[in-house]
Protein backbone atom coordinates (compact mmCIF):
# COMPACT_ATOMS: atom_id res chain seq x y z
CA UNK A 1 0.00 0.00 0.00
CA UNK A 2 1.91 3.09 -1.16
CA UNK A 3 0.74 6.67 -0.94
CA UNK A 4 0.85 8.09 -4.44
CA UNK A 5 -0.73 11.44 -3.74
CA UNK A 6 -0.72 13.51 -0.56
CA UNK A 7 -0.53 17.14 0.46
CA UNK A 8 2.95 18.51 -0.22
CA UNK A 9 5.21 19.84 2.53
CA UNK A 10 5.56 22.90 0.31
CA UNK A 11 2.21 24.10 1.61
CA UNK A 12 1.46 25.11 5.18
CA UNK A 13 -1.42 23.61 7.15
CA UNK A 14 -3.45 26.77 6.72
CA UNK A 15 -6.65 26.19 4.78
CA UNK A 16 -6.98 28.59 1.87
CA UNK A 17 -9.56 31.34 1.66
CA UNK A 18 -10.18 30.76 -2.06
CA UNK A 19 -13.73 30.31 -3.27
CA UNK A 20 -14.98 26.73 -3.79
CA UNK A 21 -13.69 25.45 -7.14
CA UNK A 22 -11.23 28.30 -7.66
CA UNK A 23 -8.17 26.75 -9.27
CA UNK A 24 -5.70 29.00 -7.45
CA UNK A 25 -5.47 26.11 -4.98
CA UNK A 26 -4.30 23.74 -7.70
CA UNK A 27 -1.67 26.21 -8.91
CA UNK A 28 -0.40 26.73 -5.35
CA UNK A 29 -0.05 22.95 -5.05
CA UNK A 30 1.92 22.67 -8.29
CA UNK A 31 4.37 25.41 -7.27
CA UNK A 32 4.75 23.93 -3.78
CA UNK A 33 5.27 20.39 -5.11
CA UNK A 34 7.88 21.59 -7.59
CA UNK A 35 9.79 23.44 -4.86
CA UNK A 36 9.63 20.34 -2.65
CA UNK A 37 10.73 18.03 -5.47
CA UNK A 38 13.62 20.35 -6.43
CA UNK A 39 14.48 20.29 -2.72
CA UNK A 40 14.74 24.09 -2.55
CA UNK A 41 11.94 24.96 -0.14
CA UNK A 42 14.47 26.07 2.47
CA UNK A 43 16.22 28.20 -0.12
CA UNK A 44 13.12 29.83 -1.61
CA UNK A 45 11.68 33.28 -1.05
CA UNK A 46 8.34 34.05 -2.65
CA UNK A 47 6.46 37.26 -3.30
CA UNK A 48 2.67 37.43 -3.09
CA UNK A 49 0.74 40.16 -4.92
CA UNK A 50 -2.34 42.14 -4.15
CA UNK A 51 -5.32 40.21 -5.49
CA UNK A 52 -7.01 36.90 -4.63
CA UNK A 53 -3.62 35.43 -3.79
CA UNK A 54 -2.78 38.32 -1.45
CA UNK A 55 -2.77 35.80 1.41
CA UNK A 56 -0.49 33.37 -0.40
CA UNK A 57 2.24 34.22 2.10
CA UNK A 58 0.25 32.14 4.59
CA UNK A 59 0.06 29.13 2.26
CA UNK A 60 3.56 28.64 0.82
CA UNK A 61 5.87 26.95 3.30
CA UNK A 62 8.86 29.20 2.62
CA UNK A 63 9.91 32.78 3.39
CA UNK A 64 7.46 35.19 1.77
CA UNK A 65 7.01 38.89 1.04
CA UNK A 66 3.77 40.76 0.47
CA UNK A 67 4.10 43.17 -2.43
CA UNK A 68 1.99 46.17 -3.36
CA UNK A 69 -0.28 45.79 -6.37
CA UNK A 70 1.74 45.12 -9.51
CA UNK A 71 5.15 45.49 -7.90
CA UNK A 72 5.96 41.88 -7.02
CA UNK A 73 8.54 41.53 -9.82
CA UNK A 74 10.41 44.58 -8.49
CA UNK A 75 10.25 43.25 -4.92
CA UNK A 76 11.50 39.90 -6.20
CA UNK A 77 14.33 41.69 -8.00
CA UNK A 78 15.42 43.33 -4.76
CA UNK A 79 15.38 39.98 -2.97
CA UNK A 80 17.24 38.14 -5.74
CA UNK A 81 19.93 40.81 -5.92
CA UNK A 82 20.51 40.37 -2.18
CA UNK A 83 20.32 36.56 -2.33
CA UNK A 84 21.49 35.57 -5.84
CA UNK A 85 21.90 31.95 -4.69
CA UNK A 86 18.30 31.65 -3.47
CA UNK A 87 15.25 30.67 -5.49
CA UNK A 88 12.93 33.68 -5.82
CA UNK A 89 9.47 33.66 -7.36
CA UNK A 90 6.52 36.01 -7.69
CA UNK A 91 2.95 34.67 -7.79
CA UNK A 92 0.62 37.13 -9.47
CA UNK A 93 -2.86 37.49 -10.92
CA UNK A 94 -3.79 39.10 -14.23
CA UNK A 95 -5.05 42.34 -12.68
CA UNK A 96 -1.77 42.59 -10.78
CA UNK A 97 0.59 41.64 -13.61
CA UNK A 98 -1.17 42.60 -16.86
CA UNK A 99 -2.57 45.92 -15.67
CA UNK A 100 -0.88 47.95 -12.92
CA UNK A 101 2.28 45.82 -12.96
CA UNK A 102 2.95 45.75 -16.70
CA UNK A 103 6.10 47.82 -16.47
CA UNK A 104 7.49 45.67 -13.71
CA UNK A 105 6.92 42.36 -15.53
CA UNK A 106 8.29 43.73 -18.81
CA UNK A 107 11.42 44.91 -17.05
CA UNK A 108 12.24 41.74 -15.13
CA UNK A 109 12.02 40.04 -18.53
CA UNK A 110 14.04 42.85 -20.11
CA UNK A 111 16.74 42.49 -17.44
CA UNK A 112 16.63 38.73 -17.65
CA UNK A 113 16.12 38.83 -13.88
CA UNK A 114 16.79 35.31 -12.62
CA UNK A 115 13.44 34.94 -10.92
CA UNK A 116 10.35 32.90 -11.78
CA UNK A 117 6.88 34.35 -12.14
CA UNK A 118 3.71 32.29 -11.83
CA UNK A 119 1.08 34.34 -13.66
CA UNK A 120 -2.51 33.28 -12.95
CA UNK A 121 -4.83 34.43 -15.74
CA UNK A 122 -8.55 34.13 -14.97
CA UNK A 123 -9.58 37.03 -17.21
CA UNK A 124 -11.05 39.09 -14.36
CA UNK A 125 -10.32 40.90 -11.10
CA UNK A 126 -11.29 38.37 -8.42
CA UNK A 127 -10.55 39.83 -4.98
CA UNK A 128 -12.25 43.15 -5.69
CA UNK A 129 -15.39 41.52 -7.00
CA UNK A 130 -15.26 40.91 -10.74
CA UNK A 131 -14.07 43.99 -12.58
CA UNK A 132 -12.80 43.85 -16.15
CA UNK A 133 -9.10 43.06 -16.51
CA UNK A 134 -6.83 43.59 -19.52
CA UNK A 135 -7.26 39.84 -20.09
CA UNK A 136 -11.09 39.93 -19.99
CA UNK A 137 -12.40 38.54 -23.29
CA UNK A 138 -14.45 40.51 -25.82
CA UNK A 139 -18.09 40.15 -24.86
CA UNK A 140 -17.26 38.79 -21.43
CA UNK A 141 -19.25 40.59 -18.76
CA UNK A 142 -17.60 42.14 -15.71
CA UNK A 143 -18.79 44.55 -13.06
CA UNK A 144 -17.05 47.33 -14.96
CA UNK A 145 -18.12 45.98 -18.35
CA UNK A 146 -21.75 45.28 -17.52
CA UNK A 147 -22.79 44.74 -21.15
CA UNK A 148 -19.64 42.81 -21.98
CA UNK A 149 -16.23 44.08 -23.03
CA UNK A 150 -16.13 45.71 -26.47
CA UNK A 151 -13.12 46.32 -28.69
CA UNK A 152 -14.33 49.83 -29.41
CA UNK A 153 -14.34 50.82 -25.74
CA UNK A 154 -11.37 48.99 -24.28
CA UNK A 155 -9.45 47.18 -26.96
CA UNK A 156 -8.63 43.47 -27.26
CA UNK A 157 -7.45 41.26 -24.41
CA UNK A 158 -3.71 41.28 -23.74
CA UNK A 159 -1.71 38.14 -24.55
CA UNK A 160 1.06 38.59 -22.00
CA UNK A 161 3.10 35.46 -22.76
CA UNK A 162 3.36 36.31 -26.45
CA UNK A 163 4.37 39.87 -25.50
CA UNK A 164 7.06 38.72 -23.09
CA UNK A 165 8.33 36.04 -25.47
CA UNK A 166 9.61 38.85 -27.73
CA UNK A 167 12.02 39.89 -24.95
CA UNK A 168 15.36 38.10 -25.07
CA UNK A 169 15.82 38.18 -21.30
CA UNK A 170 12.74 35.98 -20.95
CA UNK A 171 14.50 32.64 -21.19
CA UNK A 172 11.42 30.50 -20.47
CA UNK A 173 7.84 31.47 -21.33
CA UNK A 174 4.99 28.95 -21.37
CA UNK A 175 1.23 29.11 -21.11
CA UNK A 176 -0.54 26.24 -19.45
CA UNK A 177 -3.96 25.52 -17.99
CA UNK A 178 -5.36 23.71 -14.96
CA UNK A 179 -8.73 22.79 -16.44
CA UNK A 180 -8.11 19.00 -16.49
CA UNK A 181 -5.85 16.43 -14.80
CA UNK A 182 -3.87 16.01 -18.03
CA UNK A 183 -3.34 19.77 -18.41
CA UNK A 184 -2.56 20.06 -14.70
CA UNK A 185 0.25 17.52 -15.08
CA UNK A 186 1.59 19.44 -18.08
CA UNK A 187 1.36 22.66 -16.08
CA UNK A 188 3.47 21.15 -13.33
CA UNK A 189 6.10 20.09 -15.84
CA UNK A 190 6.28 23.64 -17.19
CA UNK A 191 6.49 25.11 -13.67
CA UNK A 192 9.32 22.75 -12.84
CA UNK A 193 11.14 23.70 -16.05
CA UNK A 194 10.67 27.39 -15.21
CA UNK A 195 12.23 27.01 -11.76
CA UNK A 196 15.01 24.88 -13.23
CA UNK A 197 15.68 27.69 -15.73
CA UNK A 198 16.15 30.03 -12.76
CA UNK A 199 18.36 27.56 -10.88
CA UNK A 200 20.47 27.17 -14.03
CA UNK A 201 20.71 30.99 -14.13
CA UNK A 202 19.49 31.10 -17.74
CA UNK A 203 17.39 34.24 -17.22
CA UNK A 204 13.79 35.19 -16.45
CA UNK A 205 11.12 32.48 -16.46
CA UNK A 206 7.34 32.82 -16.46
CA UNK A 207 4.45 30.39 -16.61
CA UNK A 208 1.05 31.83 -17.48
CA UNK A 209 -1.62 29.58 -15.99
CA UNK A 210 -5.17 29.85 -17.28
CA UNK A 211 -7.37 29.58 -14.22
CA UNK A 212 -11.05 29.82 -13.29
CA UNK A 213 -13.11 32.32 -11.25
CA UNK A 214 -16.49 30.65 -10.65
CA UNK A 215 -17.66 33.39 -8.28
CA UNK A 216 -17.07 36.31 -10.62
CA UNK A 217 -17.79 34.44 -13.83
CA UNK A 218 -21.11 33.68 -12.19
CA UNK A 219 -21.11 29.97 -13.05
CA UNK A 220 -20.48 26.76 -11.14
CA UNK A 221 -16.95 25.46 -10.62
CA UNK A 222 -17.60 22.55 -13.01
CA UNK A 223 -19.03 24.85 -15.70
CA UNK A 224 -16.08 27.17 -15.14
CA UNK A 225 -13.66 24.49 -16.33
CA UNK A 226 -15.80 24.07 -19.43
CA UNK A 227 -15.98 27.87 -19.96
CA UNK A 228 -12.21 28.06 -19.71
CA UNK A 229 -11.77 25.28 -22.27
CA UNK A 230 -14.31 26.82 -24.69
CA UNK A 231 -13.32 30.49 -24.33
CA UNK A 232 -9.93 31.14 -22.70
CA UNK A 233 -7.86 28.43 -24.37
CA UNK A 234 -8.88 29.42 -27.92
CA UNK A 235 -7.87 33.05 -27.27
CA UNK A 236 -4.87 32.18 -25.09
CA UNK A 237 -3.33 29.15 -26.86
CA UNK A 238 -1.41 26.77 -24.64
CA UNK A 239 2.19 25.80 -25.24
CA UNK A 240 5.76 26.82 -24.85
CA UNK A 241 6.68 30.14 -26.42
CA UNK A 242 10.30 30.24 -25.43
CA UNK A 243 12.83 28.08 -23.65
CA UNK A 244 16.57 28.49 -23.20
CA UNK A 245 18.71 27.39 -26.18
CA UNK A 246 20.08 23.90 -25.95
CA UNK A 247 17.15 22.73 -23.89
CA UNK A 248 14.79 20.33 -25.70
Amino acid at each position, binding site marked *: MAIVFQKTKGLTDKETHYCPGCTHGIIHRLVAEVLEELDVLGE*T*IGVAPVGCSVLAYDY*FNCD*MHEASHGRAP*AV*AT*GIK*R*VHPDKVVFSYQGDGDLASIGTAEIVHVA*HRGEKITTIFVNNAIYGMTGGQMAPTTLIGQRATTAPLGRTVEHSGRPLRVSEMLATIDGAAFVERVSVDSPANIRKAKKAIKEAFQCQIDRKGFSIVEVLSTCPTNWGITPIDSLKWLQDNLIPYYPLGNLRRPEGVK
Partner: protein
Amino acid sequence: MAKVLMKGNEAIGAAAIKAGCRYFFGYPITPQNELPEYMSREMPKVGGVFLQAESEIAAINMVYGAAGAGARVMTSSSSPGIALKQEGITYIAGAELPCVIVNIVRGGPGLGGIQPSQSDYNQVTRGGGNGDYKLLVYAPANLQEMVDLMQEAFDAADFYRNPVMMVGDGMIGQMMEPIEFKDSVSRFDLPEKDWATTGTKGQRKPNIINSLALDPAELEKHNHKLQKKYDAMKENEVRYETYNMENAEVVIVAYGTTSRIVRNAINDLKEQSINVGLIRPITLWPFPEKAFDEVPAACKSLLSVEMSMGQMVDDIKIASNGRWPVSFYGRVGGMIPTPEAVMGKVKELIGGEK
Protein backbone atom coordinates in the same frame (compact mmCIF):
# COMPACT_ATOMS: atom_id res chain seq x y z
CA MET B 1 41.73 60.90 8.04
CA ALA B 2 42.56 63.43 5.32
CA LYS B 3 39.88 65.74 3.99
CA VAL B 4 38.71 65.19 0.45
CA LEU B 5 36.88 67.63 -1.82
CA MET B 6 33.70 65.98 -3.05
CA LYS B 7 30.41 66.83 -4.67
CA GLY B 8 27.45 66.36 -2.32
CA ASN B 9 25.71 63.66 -4.30
CA GLU B 10 28.91 61.62 -4.52
CA ALA B 11 29.73 62.20 -0.87
CA ILE B 12 26.36 60.67 0.02
CA GLY B 13 27.32 57.58 -1.99
CA ALA B 14 30.70 57.30 -0.34
CA ALA B 15 29.20 57.75 3.12
CA ALA B 16 26.52 55.16 2.45
CA ILE B 17 29.08 52.57 1.36
CA LYS B 18 31.18 53.40 4.40
CA ALA B 19 28.08 52.84 6.54
CA GLY B 20 27.78 49.32 5.14
CA CYS B 21 25.14 49.93 2.48
CA ARG B 22 25.66 47.34 -0.25
CA TYR B 23 22.47 47.76 -2.33
CA PHE B 24 21.32 50.81 -4.24
CA PHE B 25 18.25 50.90 -6.48
CA GLY B 26 17.64 54.19 -8.26
CA TYR B 27 16.38 56.05 -11.27
CA PRO B 28 17.65 59.09 -13.11
CA ILE B 29 16.27 62.47 -12.04
CA THR B 30 18.00 65.84 -11.77
CA PRO B 31 19.51 67.12 -9.44
CA GLN B 32 20.58 63.78 -7.84
CA ASN B 33 22.03 61.93 -10.85
CA GLU B 34 25.62 61.96 -9.64
CA LEU B 35 24.60 59.65 -6.76
CA PRO B 36 23.34 56.72 -8.84
CA GLU B 37 26.24 57.33 -11.22
CA TYR B 38 28.68 57.16 -8.30
CA MET B 39 27.01 54.00 -7.02
CA SER B 40 27.18 52.38 -10.45
CA ARG B 41 30.98 52.81 -10.31
CA GLU B 42 31.64 52.13 -6.64
CA MET B 43 29.15 49.43 -5.54
CA PRO B 44 30.71 46.70 -7.68
CA LYS B 45 34.10 47.51 -6.13
CA VAL B 46 32.82 46.59 -2.68
CA GLY B 47 30.83 43.57 -3.81
CA GLY B 48 27.62 45.56 -3.66
CA VAL B 49 24.80 45.91 -6.16
CA PHE B 50 23.76 49.00 -8.09
CA LEU B 51 20.65 48.59 -10.21
CA GLN B 52 18.84 51.23 -12.23
CA ALA B 53 15.14 50.38 -12.07
CA GLU B 54 12.52 51.09 -14.69
CA SER B 55 10.90 53.74 -12.50
CA GLU B 56 11.06 55.25 -9.03
CA ILE B 57 8.13 53.03 -8.12
CA ALA B 58 10.05 49.92 -9.14
CA ALA B 59 13.17 51.22 -7.37
CA ILE B 60 11.45 51.70 -3.99
CA ASN B 61 9.89 48.25 -4.33
CA MET B 62 13.31 46.75 -4.98
CA VAL B 63 14.43 48.51 -1.81
CA TYR B 64 11.40 46.99 -0.01
CA GLY B 65 12.42 43.53 -1.25
CA ALA B 66 16.10 43.93 -0.42
CA ALA B 67 15.33 45.38 3.02
CA GLY B 68 13.04 42.47 3.80
CA ALA B 69 15.80 40.12 2.69
CA GLY B 70 17.98 41.64 5.42
CA ALA B 71 20.21 44.04 3.48
CA ARG B 72 21.40 47.57 4.21
CA VAL B 73 19.80 49.22 1.22
CA MET B 74 19.03 52.72 -0.07
CA THR B 75 17.54 54.67 -2.90
CA SER B 76 17.68 58.31 -3.89
CA SER B 77 15.55 60.64 -5.95
CA SER B 78 14.29 64.20 -6.15
CA SER B 79 10.89 65.63 -5.24
CA PRO B 80 8.60 64.31 -8.03
CA GLY B 81 10.47 61.02 -7.88
CA ILE B 82 9.96 60.91 -4.12
CA ALA B 83 6.26 61.51 -4.75
CA LEU B 84 6.21 58.37 -6.92
CA LYS B 85 7.81 56.36 -4.12
CA GLN B 86 5.27 57.21 -1.44
CA GLU B 87 3.25 53.98 -1.62
CA GLY B 88 6.45 51.95 -1.40
CA ILE B 89 7.61 53.99 1.59
CA THR B 90 4.42 53.43 3.58
CA TYR B 91 4.66 49.69 2.81
CA ILE B 92 8.24 49.67 4.11
CA ALA B 93 7.13 51.49 7.27
CA GLY B 94 4.10 49.22 7.68
CA ALA B 95 6.23 46.10 7.25
CA GLU B 96 8.78 47.55 9.70
CA LEU B 97 11.78 47.46 7.40
CA PRO B 98 14.93 49.58 7.51
CA CYS B 99 16.15 51.60 4.55
CA VAL B 100 17.53 55.06 3.72
CA ILE B 101 15.88 57.31 1.16
CA VAL B 102 17.76 60.36 -0.09
CA ASN B 103 15.71 63.28 -1.43
CA ILE B 104 17.62 66.08 -3.20
CA VAL B 105 14.82 68.61 -3.36
CA ARG B 106 14.00 70.64 -6.45
CA GLY B 107 11.38 73.27 -7.20
CA GLY B 108 7.74 72.24 -7.49
CA PRO B 109 4.84 71.71 -7.79
CA GLY B 110 4.50 69.26 -10.63
CA LEU B 111 7.47 69.06 -12.92
CA GLY B 112 8.58 72.32 -11.32
CA GLY B 113 12.22 73.07 -11.90
CA ILE B 114 15.62 71.58 -11.21
CA GLN B 115 17.06 74.34 -9.05
CA PRO B 116 17.39 74.04 -5.26
CA SER B 117 14.28 74.11 -3.10
CA GLN B 118 12.86 73.09 0.26
CA SER B 119 9.30 72.71 -0.98
CA ASP B 120 9.14 69.03 0.01
CA TYR B 121 8.92 69.84 3.74
CA ASN B 122 5.30 68.65 3.94
CA GLN B 123 5.93 65.63 1.74
CA VAL B 124 8.82 64.42 3.90
CA THR B 125 7.50 65.31 7.36
CA ARG B 126 3.80 64.52 6.92
CA GLY B 127 4.48 61.47 4.78
CA GLY B 128 2.96 61.22 1.34
CA GLY B 129 1.80 57.64 1.81
CA ASN B 130 -1.34 56.33 3.45
CA GLY B 131 -1.79 55.49 7.10
CA ASP B 132 -0.27 56.55 10.40
CA TYR B 133 3.45 56.28 9.87
CA LYS B 134 6.42 58.59 10.24
CA LEU B 135 9.91 58.83 8.83
CA LEU B 136 12.95 59.97 10.73
CA VAL B 137 14.00 62.90 8.53
CA TYR B 138 17.47 64.46 8.59
CA ALA B 139 18.20 67.81 6.89
CA PRO B 140 21.96 68.50 6.86
CA ALA B 141 23.22 72.03 6.22
CA ASN B 142 26.65 71.04 4.88
CA LEU B 143 28.36 68.04 3.34
CA GLN B 144 30.33 67.10 6.46
CA GLU B 145 27.16 66.96 8.50
CA MET B 146 25.44 64.99 5.77
CA VAL B 147 28.24 62.44 5.57
CA ASP B 148 28.20 62.02 9.36
CA LEU B 149 24.39 61.67 9.36
CA MET B 150 24.43 58.93 6.72
CA GLN B 151 25.96 56.54 9.26
CA GLU B 152 23.36 57.63 11.80
CA ALA B 153 20.61 57.15 9.22
CA PHE B 154 21.46 53.51 8.48
CA ASP B 155 21.93 52.68 12.17
CA ALA B 156 18.68 54.36 13.19
CA ALA B 157 16.84 52.65 10.31
CA ASP B 158 18.05 49.25 11.52
CA PHE B 159 17.36 50.06 15.16
CA TYR B 160 13.85 51.35 14.64
CA ARG B 161 13.17 49.08 11.61
CA ASN B 162 11.77 52.07 9.77
CA PRO B 163 12.68 54.08 6.69
CA VAL B 164 14.89 57.10 7.30
CA MET B 165 14.99 60.03 4.91
CA MET B 166 17.95 62.27 4.19
CA VAL B 167 16.78 65.57 2.73
CA GLY B 168 19.12 67.95 0.93
CA ASP B 169 18.04 70.94 -1.05
CA GLY B 170 19.54 71.00 -4.53
CA MET B 171 22.67 72.84 -3.35
CA ILE B 172 23.60 70.10 -0.90
CA GLY B 173 23.63 67.63 -3.76
CA GLN B 174 25.41 69.81 -6.25
CA MET B 175 28.04 71.77 -4.31
CA MET B 176 31.52 70.58 -3.42
CA GLU B 177 33.03 70.90 0.04
CA PRO B 178 36.01 69.31 1.79
CA ILE B 179 34.82 66.40 3.95
CA GLU B 180 36.32 63.79 6.18
CA PHE B 181 35.02 60.24 6.46
CA LYS B 182 35.34 59.55 10.17
CA ASP B 183 35.18 56.06 11.60
CA SER B 184 32.23 56.03 13.93
CA VAL B 185 30.84 53.43 16.29
CA SER B 186 27.09 52.93 16.10
CA ARG B 187 25.35 54.29 19.20
CA PHE B 188 22.79 51.54 18.91
CA ASP B 189 23.51 47.91 19.57
CA LEU B 190 21.80 46.42 16.57
CA PRO B 191 20.25 42.95 16.94
CA GLU B 192 20.50 40.21 14.31
CA LYS B 193 17.92 40.51 11.57
CA ASP B 194 16.32 37.16 12.42
CA TRP B 195 13.09 38.42 10.88
CA ALA B 196 14.66 38.69 7.38
CA THR B 197 13.85 36.39 4.48
CA THR B 198 17.05 34.45 3.99
CA GLY B 199 15.51 31.03 3.33
CA THR B 200 14.29 28.82 6.16
CA LYS B 201 16.88 26.13 5.35
CA GLY B 202 14.33 23.84 6.94
CA GLN B 203 15.45 25.10 10.35
CA ARG B 204 12.79 27.68 11.20
CA LYS B 205 9.25 28.71 10.44
CA PRO B 206 8.93 30.93 7.36
CA ASN B 207 9.58 34.64 7.85
CA ILE B 208 6.89 36.82 6.33
CA ILE B 209 7.45 40.45 5.31
CA ASN B 210 4.03 42.00 5.24
CA SER B 211 2.00 45.09 6.06
CA LEU B 212 -1.44 43.57 5.44
CA ALA B 213 -3.73 42.92 8.40
CA LEU B 214 -7.31 42.32 7.36
CA ASP B 215 -8.41 41.84 10.99
CA PRO B 216 -9.05 45.39 12.28
CA ALA B 217 -8.13 44.54 15.86
CA GLU B 218 -4.79 43.21 14.67
CA LEU B 219 -4.17 46.25 12.47
CA GLU B 220 -4.99 48.56 15.37
CA LYS B 221 -2.55 46.69 17.59
CA HIS B 222 0.08 47.00 14.83
CA ASN B 223 -0.51 50.75 14.60
CA HIS B 224 0.03 51.16 18.31
CA LYS B 225 3.25 49.18 18.03
CA LEU B 226 4.46 51.52 15.28
CA GLN B 227 3.41 54.55 17.32
CA LYS B 228 5.65 53.43 20.19
CA LYS B 229 8.57 53.63 17.78
CA TYR B 230 7.64 57.12 16.70
CA ASP B 231 7.25 58.20 20.33
CA ALA B 232 10.72 56.78 21.01
CA MET B 233 12.09 58.73 18.05
CA LYS B 234 10.52 61.91 19.45
CA GLU B 235 12.15 61.12 22.77
CA ASN B 236 15.63 60.21 21.52
CA GLU B 237 16.27 61.32 17.94
CA VAL B 238 15.52 65.05 17.89
CA ARG B 239 18.53 67.07 16.70
CA TYR B 240 18.87 70.79 16.30
CA GLU B 241 21.39 73.61 16.65
CA THR B 242 20.91 77.08 18.04
CA TYR B 243 23.06 80.16 17.33
CA ASN B 244 23.25 83.60 18.98
CA MET B 245 20.08 83.09 21.00
CA GLU B 246 20.80 85.27 24.10
CA ASN B 247 18.52 88.34 24.21
CA ALA B 248 17.63 87.80 20.57
CA GLU B 249 14.96 90.26 19.46
CA VAL B 250 14.00 87.96 16.57
CA VAL B 251 14.66 84.21 16.28
CA ILE B 252 14.87 82.80 12.77
CA VAL B 253 14.05 79.13 12.11
CA ALA B 254 15.83 77.77 9.06
CA TYR B 255 17.38 74.47 7.97
CA GLY B 256 19.70 73.14 5.29
CA THR B 257 21.70 75.59 3.19
CA THR B 258 19.14 78.32 3.89
CA SER B 259 20.33 78.30 7.52
CA ARG B 260 23.85 79.21 6.30
CA ILE B 261 22.50 82.25 4.46
CA VAL B 262 20.59 83.21 7.61
CA ARG B 263 23.75 82.84 9.72
CA ASN B 264 25.49 85.41 7.48
CA ALA B 265 22.54 87.75 7.87
CA ILE B 266 22.66 87.32 11.66
CA ASN B 267 26.37 88.16 11.72
CA ASP B 268 25.82 91.26 9.59
CA LEU B 269 22.87 92.38 11.75
CA LYS B 270 25.02 92.00 14.88
CA GLU B 271 27.32 94.68 13.51
CA GLN B 272 24.28 96.91 13.35
CA SER B 273 23.59 95.90 17.03
CA ILE B 274 20.49 94.02 16.03
CA ASN B 275 20.54 90.73 17.86
CA VAL B 276 18.93 87.83 15.97
CA GLY B 277 19.06 84.14 16.94
CA LEU B 278 18.77 80.97 14.85
CA ILE B 279 17.11 77.66 15.54
CA ARG B 280 18.30 75.14 12.96
CA PRO B 281 16.35 71.90 12.89
CA ILE B 282 18.65 69.00 11.90
CA THR B 283 15.79 66.52 12.19
CA LEU B 284 12.72 67.82 10.36
CA TRP B 285 10.82 64.99 11.94
CA PRO B 286 10.77 64.79 14.90
CA PHE B 287 10.54 68.60 14.82
CA PRO B 288 12.72 70.15 17.59
CA GLU B 289 9.91 71.62 19.67
CA LYS B 290 12.02 71.91 22.83
CA ALA B 291 14.41 74.28 21.01
CA PHE B 292 11.75 76.94 21.41
CA ASP B 293 12.16 76.86 25.18
CA GLU B 294 15.49 78.61 24.53
CA VAL B 295 13.83 81.59 22.88
CA PRO B 296 14.19 84.64 25.17
CA ALA B 297 10.87 85.91 26.53
CA ALA B 298 11.62 89.39 25.14
CA CYS B 299 11.80 88.03 21.60
CA LYS B 300 9.50 90.07 19.38
CA SER B 301 8.93 87.52 16.63
CA LEU B 302 9.86 84.15 15.22
CA LEU B 303 10.71 84.16 11.53
CA SER B 304 10.66 81.11 9.30
CA VAL B 305 13.06 81.44 6.37
CA GLU B 306 12.66 78.73 3.79
CA MET B 307 12.97 77.97 0.10
CA SER B 308 9.27 77.22 0.00
CA MET B 309 6.00 79.11 0.51
CA GLY B 310 6.18 78.57 4.25
CA GLN B 311 5.65 74.85 4.75
CA MET B 312 7.47 74.90 8.10
CA VAL B 313 5.43 77.78 9.59
CA ASP B 314 2.77 75.49 11.02
CA ASP B 315 5.32 73.39 12.92
CA ILE B 316 6.87 76.59 14.32
CA LYS B 317 3.44 77.82 15.45
CA ILE B 318 2.73 74.46 17.08
CA ALA B 319 6.11 74.40 18.80
CA SER B 320 6.00 78.03 19.95
CA ASN B 321 2.41 77.56 21.09
CA GLY B 322 1.40 81.20 20.70
CA ARG B 323 4.24 82.57 22.85
CA TRP B 324 5.51 84.70 19.92
CA PRO B 325 4.11 85.86 16.64
CA VAL B 326 5.42 83.83 13.69
CA SER B 327 6.35 85.44 10.38
CA PHE B 328 7.69 84.00 7.14
CA TYR B 329 10.14 84.96 4.45
CA GLY B 330 10.93 82.69 1.55
CA ARG B 331 12.06 82.35 -2.06
CA VAL B 332 10.82 79.54 -4.27
CA GLY B 333 11.14 78.00 -7.69
CA GLY B 334 14.88 77.76 -7.29
CA MET B 335 15.40 81.40 -6.32
CA ILE B 336 17.74 81.62 -3.35
CA PRO B 337 17.13 84.05 -0.46
CA THR B 338 19.93 86.61 0.03
CA PRO B 339 21.36 87.72 3.39
CA GLU B 340 20.29 91.29 2.59
CA ALA B 341 16.70 90.27 2.01
CA VAL B 342 16.65 88.34 5.28
CA MET B 343 18.08 91.39 7.08
CA GLY B 344 15.40 93.58 5.50
CA LYS B 345 12.66 91.27 6.76
CA VAL B 346 14.12 91.30 10.27
CA LYS B 347 14.22 95.07 10.34
CA GLU B 348 10.65 95.18 9.13
CA LEU B 349 9.67 92.94 12.06
CA ILE B 350 11.41 95.04 14.71
CA GLY B 351 10.05 98.29 13.31
CA GLY B 352 12.84 99.63 11.16
CA GLU B 353 16.43 100.79 11.96
CA LYS B 354 17.67 100.87 15.54
